[in-house]
Each structure stands twice: as structure tokens, then as C-alpha cells.
């Protein structure tokens, strides 16, 4: 309930920052279960924003709503003035949003390079049949070669060039995560959603990830929204944080505010008193 006025204040404070993603009053019900309730949040351009919450809070569900896998029962999602609600996932990708998955979803029989090339397909203008007779359609053939070259560049950029011709499932875990991000970048997104990028990483790898995410944002002109359980990562990299619990937004603010917020602490650690008055806000 308190979420809306706060976000208004904030957007007034950062008036020069353009809002790219705007989620308005989104509710998603599965039968009687409210997975996400009246969620309103927005993400300013060029920011790294965190979406956190305890297990089962509905974070991944929010990602699925934004990327078109779920159609919200109520509410809307806008991206750069374009209504995303109701668009199928591939249209959302065309609009410039790309994502990774909590459990890595690579094309595991394909090589690393092919995985990235598949990502580029959404921006490929040549038709499939033109490449059957490349001598008749030199433009399509050139594009095909360019895709191979730019995919290779992208792999070099993310430090995967040496494994370019390895089958993607043979990569070590951390490299698979990076490949998933590389593949998402190949769709030339303006907005990147990362679902638990640090999952399964050791502390040192997590620290590397912080710098990697910042570098991504700067090198590719991205806005990044990420779900993360590793608080070191969240507090280290996010400029703004939204906290979900049981489908509801319970807090938002800078990392410092969130760390001190009693509601957040309660959601994560529980509280001593019996939970009689817990749903008071709803």
C-alpha cells in the first residue's frame, strides 16, 4: 500500500532519469493463489536494480510476467512506452528485453558460438531460404558471415572465445552462466533481466560477478534488473532495490535503506511475536 507514494517521491527526486520499465498494479493469480499482488515498480534507464525477497516471494514470477511467459490477471507492463502485457515472449525479446534463467537454459547440444548465433537470429533480416542459394542473395550471405563474426567478438568480450567450438554443456558452471548472458546480449537488448546470476558461485566468483555486471551495463548501454539471493552481490552492485514478500512489495530504496528496514528483516528472519497482525497492510 505504501509503495506508490514512495515511488512517486523517488521519481521526482531523480527527475532527469527516464523510466524504461514500468510495472503498474500487476496482479497474477493461479486459481486462489495470489502469486503477485498489486505490484507497481519502475526501473530507471541505465540503472542496476535489484529485486529481492525470501524463497517463494514471486520474484521469478515477476520476470515471467515481464518477459511474456505469464499474462497478468490485472495490470500492465510498459517498456519505453510500448505495452508489453499480452505480448508473447519472442515479441518481448524483439522489443529489447532479454533474460537469463535461474536454472541455466542453454542449447546444450550446440556449440558455444552457435548458442550466441541463435541469439542474433531475432535481428537477422535475411530470410531462411535466401541462404540456401547464397550466390543469388549476397546480402543475406554477408549478413550470415557478419553474425558469425560479431558473435565471435561477443564471446571474446566475455572471455569465452577459446571455447567457441566446444559443446555448450561441456563448459564449467561459471562459464555456462556467462554464456547465457552472452546469448542474451546477442539479441541486442536494451534491458537485461538476470535471474540469480550468482547462484552456485563461490565468494570469489561472486565478487568477480559484481564487476562483470557493472562492466556489462557500461559496455552495452544496458539497464539491468536482477534477482539475487547473495546479499553481498545485491548490496554491492544494485543502486536501488525492491523487496517482495509473498507476492507483495514490502519495501524499496537504496541498499542502505533496505538493510535497515525492519519489514525486510522481518520477512527474511521472521519475528518473535505471533503473526496475528501480519496481513494488516492488505
Amino acid at each position: 500500500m505504501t509503495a506508490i507514494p514512495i515511488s512517486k517521491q523517488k521519481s521526482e527526486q531523480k527527475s532527469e532519469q527516464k523510466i524504461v520499465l514500468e510495472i503498474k498494479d500487476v496482479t497474477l493469480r493461479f486459481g486462489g493463489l495470489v502469486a503477485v499482488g498489486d505490484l507497481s515498480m519502475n526501473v530507471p534507464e541505465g540503472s542496476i536494480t535489484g529485486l529481492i525477497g525470501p524463497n517463494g516471494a514471486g520474484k521469478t514470477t515477476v520476470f515471467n510476467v515481464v518477459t511474456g511467459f505469464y499474462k497478468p490477471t490485472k495490470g500492465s507492463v510498459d517498456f519505453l512506452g510500448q505495452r508489453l502485457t499480452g505480448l508473447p515472449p519472442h515479441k518481448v525479446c524483439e522489443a529489447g528485453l532479454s533474460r537469463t534463467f535461474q536454472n541455466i537454459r542453454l542449447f546444450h547440444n550446440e556449440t558455444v558460438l552457435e548458442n550466441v548465433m541463435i541469439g542474433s537470429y531475432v535481428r537477422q533480416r535475411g530470410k531462411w531460404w535466401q541462404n540456401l542459394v547464397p550466390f543469388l542473395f549476397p546480402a543475406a550471405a554477408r549478413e550470415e558471415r557478419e553474425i558469425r563474426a560479431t558473435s565471435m567478438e561477443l564471446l571474446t568480450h566475455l572471455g569465452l572465445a577459446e571455447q567457441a567450438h566446444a559443446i555448450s554443456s561441456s563448459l564449467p558452471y561459471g562459464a555456462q552462466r556467462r554464456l547465457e548472458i552472452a546469448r542474451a546480449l546477442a539479441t541486442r537488448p536494451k534491458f537485461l533481466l538476470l535471474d540469480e546470476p550468482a547462484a552456485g558461485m563461490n565468494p570469489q566468483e561472486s565478487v568477480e560477478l559484481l564487476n562483470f555486471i557493472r562492466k556489462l551495463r557500461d559496455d552495452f548501454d544496458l539497464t539491468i534488473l536482477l534477482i539475487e539471493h547473495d546479499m553481498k552481490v545485491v548490496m554491492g552492485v544494485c543502486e536501488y532495490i525492491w523487496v517482495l514478500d509473498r507476492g507483495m512489495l514490502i519495501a524499496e530504496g537504496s541498499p542502505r535503506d533496505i538493510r535497515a528496514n525492519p519489514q525486510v528483516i522481518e520477512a527474511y528472519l521472521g519475528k518473535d511475536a505471533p503473526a496475528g497482525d501480519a496481513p494488516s497492510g492488505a
Partner: protein
Amino acid sequence: MTTKIRNGTLNLLSLAALFYFLWWAPGNLDGYKLRIINLIAINAILGLSLNLIYGMTGMFSLGHAGFMAIGAYVSALLILTAEQKTTMWILDPIAPWLLNLHTPFIASLILAGLAAAFLGWVIALPVLRLGGDYLGIATLGFAEIIRILIVNLTPLTNGSLGLKGIPAHTDLWMSYGCFVVVLIFMVRLMNSNFGNVLRAVRDDEIAAKTMGINTFQTRVLAFTIGCFGGGLGGALMGNLITTIDPKMFMITQTYSLLMVVVVGGLGSITGSVIGSILVTTMLEWLRFVENPVTIGSFHIPGIPGMRMVIFSMLLIVIIIFRREGIMGTREFSWDWLFPAKPSGAKGVRGQ
């Protein structure tokens, strides 16, 4: 660059070798062997088209016999003469508009493919929303529907009597010509980025959608192209055997194609070609088990259908011990012959 020139030269050389063989074979091999060599090419076309649907794009389809039937009938109806048609339709007179329809053989092949592709497209729209085993069952059902329609639409198809006296247009040049075209098509398709996209749809549909791929449209397209191959193969087969009837296109026909694809390796172009050679020759060679055998004082009468039993057992053995087939998803490459130079280039393969 040098490997590119080398591979190109080797491709041309193998094509030349194929040409020489096709020129040499008719004068030096008997009709039975020629028939088998023809069938190898046709089964390879059919296997490749089924592999595009099942192996490359991951749609378990059991409907290929139905699309073959469409192709075989369309082609036969287009090249039979009006006199042949009037004498053949005994149960019901032939539909008048069909009587004088006539096209050259090549045109009939293309139209046969297009007819099968169109029907495949119509079927794909509702059926491809299903996945996995459900898709297999639905396509199986559609293939049966096509067969039953052929049996009952007597004015169009002459019903269960089938069509006889189809001119034997399919010679080695025709079947291998079509085979080479289909092979080059498949190699180019699967080596292009669109080929990657097809494999992506097979491997992980959700991830493919996230990558901006319209997976439904992609599957419909692959299915339609595969059905074109089915129709083309069916038409070639009809013109090779010169008689067709609905019984030819039962589920067993789909099974033997499935065998070609699975034995060779799902998702491998080379595999389908090897599978076609193996399955076609084995099916003929195994005929000896159906002959009466006398071992000492023991006499075993010939059991018709015995080779299918043995074949099915072979299939079970393959599925248990080498599920990925002979090739897996790998492809033939000239680099195999030159192991020193690593490269990703793939060669067009000729027999």
C-alpha cells in the same frame, strides 16, 4: 581458404564419381540391383525429410506415410493418360475434371511435393500445438485419415484397387538427381543460422522463445518442408514401382523410415544417408530368412514377414546399446580424411 577449395574439389570429385556410377550402373547391373539402388536414393530423401521434422526440430511425427501417399497419388494422377484413367476406374467413374489433367513428370513431382506440403501445413496448424508423444499419436491419426480417404474417394483415387501402369519415369538419374538436390538443400539449411534455430527449438523451446524465436512458426515451417520431402519421395516411389495402392502407405512404411532415421542418427544428415543404405539393403538381403530352409534333416518352412521380426529386433538392440544411432548428431566432413587440419567445414556427401 585452402580447406574451402579442398572441400569444394572433393565435393565435385564425389559428385563426378556418382555421375560415373549412374552412367555405368544401368548397363552392368541387373534390374533387381538397380531397383535397390533407386530405393536407396528415395529412402534417403524420405529419411532426410523425416529427420528434418523429428531429428532436427524435435517433432515426433508418425505421419510420413500419409504425406508419401499424397505425393504418390498426386504425381500418378497427373501423369497417367486419359485412356489409362478411363480403363482403370471400374468401381466408379473418374471425376471428369481429373480425367484430362496432365503434366510432365518433373512438374508432377513438384506438384506432388507442394500438395503434401500444403496438407502438412494445414495439419500442422492444430497439431503442432501438441508436443512429444501426443504429436506422434496425432500425426499417426492424420496419416490413417489420409489413407482411409484414399480408399473411399473412389472417383479421385480408384479406391482400394490403386493405380496401375504408372510410367516408370524414376530412373537412376531422376532419383539421384532429386537426392542430390535434397541433400544440398539440407546441408545448406542446417549449416545456416536458421539450422541453428531449428536445433534450438528442439533443445529448449522456452529458451528459444526468450531468444526472440517464434517457435510455433518455426516448427510449422520445418514440418511443412519435411512434408514436401515426403510427397516428393512418395511420388518418386510410385513412379519406380509403377503401381500404388493404399496398403503401401500403412504405418509400416513410416516405421521403416523411422528406422532409417534412428539407425543413422537423429539430427544427422550423414546419418540418414547411411541409414537409408543400411536399411534398404538389409530389408532386401534379409529376405533369405523368409525362404524355406533345410538344416540336415530339419526343415523350416518359409515364414513371410520374418525379416521384419529380425529387423525389429535389430532396432531394439540399437535403441538399447547405441541410442544415438550410427552418427549421433555428427556430420561427415572431409576433415576426417585429413585429421591434421582442424576446421568446422562440412562436406556435401556423395555415394
